C-alpha cells in the first residue's frame, strides 16, 4: 500500500471516495491524487465507467405482444383476476 505526501494511505483515500464523489467535489484536486499514480488511475477508470454507463445504455423496445398482455390484465383487473 503506497503512501502519499500528505500521509494519507491509499486505503484511507479510497474509503473516502464514496463521500467525495457524492459531495460533488472534484476528486482530482484531492491532495492524495497529486502524489499517487495508483489512485489517479483508479479514479480515472471509475469515472470512465460512470460516463460509459450514462452514454452507452440504450432504450429497448418491448415485445409487441406486451401490450396485449397488459390489456388482458387490465380487463381482468376490471372484471376479475389478472392474466399474469
Amino acid at each position, binding site marked *: 500500500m503506497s503512501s502519499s505526501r500528505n500521509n494519507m494511505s491509499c486505503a484511507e483515500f479510497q474509503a473516502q471516495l464514496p463521500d467525495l464523489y457524492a459531495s460533488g467535489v472534484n476528486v482530482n484536486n484531492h491532495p492524495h491524487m497529486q502524489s499517487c499514480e495508483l*489512485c489517479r488511475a483508479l479514479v480515472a477508470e471509475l469515472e470512465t465507467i*460512470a460516463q460509459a*454507463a450514462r452514454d452507452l*445504455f*440504450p432504450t429497448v423496445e418491448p415485445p409487441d405482444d*406486451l*401490450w*396485449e398482455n*397488459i390489456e388482458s*390484465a387490465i380487463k381482468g383487473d376490471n372484471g376479475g383476476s389478472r392474466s399474469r
Partner: protein
Amino acid sequence: MPRSSSPAQPPDPAAAAKRNTVNAAPAGRPAFTPAASPDPVETDALARAQAGDHQAFAQLYAIHKRRIYSLCLRMVGNIAEAEDLTQEAFLQLHRKIATFRGDSAFSTWLHRLAINVVLMQLRKKGLSLISLDEAMEPTPEEGPGRSFGAPDLTLTGAIDRLALERAVADLPAGYRLIFILHDVEGFEHNEIASMLDCSIGNSKSQLHKARLKLRDALRKHLPQEAQP
C-alpha cells in the same frame, strides 16, 4: 397466458415520440427529466386516460413503453422478468392514474411508480438491500494492489456497450440497483436512500463498490494484448 381476442394495438409511438421531449432526450440522460413545457399530446392523452378513455391509455403506453421497459430490464437484467414488471407497472398506472395531480411531471411520476414496482418484486424475492452491504474497508480484491500494473481502461478505450451491459447484469442485485438508479437514471443518493429504505452512506458505499466490481469485470474483457 390469456390473450385478448381482438387486441387493440396502441397507436404508433413514432409520431408521438417525435413530439415527446422526454423520449427525445439524448441517450443516457435521466429518463425522468421533466420536459421544459408539457407535451400537448401527452397532456391530452393523460387527461382522457384519467377520465377512463382506454385508447388514451394505450397512447400513454406507446409514449412511455420503451423507457419503462428499459428501466425494468436494466434493474433486473432478465428479459422475462422485465416484461412482467413492465406489465405490472402499467397495470399499476391504470389503477392509479386518476390520482395523478400534476405535482411533478407525469414521466417522473410514472418512472418512480415503475421503480417501486421493481423494488417491491425484488423484496418479494427476498432481496435485502441492507444485508448486501459490506464493510467499508476495501477487501483484498477491491484494494489498490489489484490495479497496480493492470491495463488502464481509460487509455485502452476498451469499454463497449455489450461488455458493460454484461458486467452490470452480473453485479449482485443490490449493487446493480444502486448503480442503475444513480449512474444511469440520474437519481441522487438521498432519493435512492428514500426509495430503497437504506442510509445515504449505504447508497454511496454500494455505488462505489458496484463501480469497483464493474472495473474488475471489464478488465477481464480487455483484448489479450492489453492484459498485464
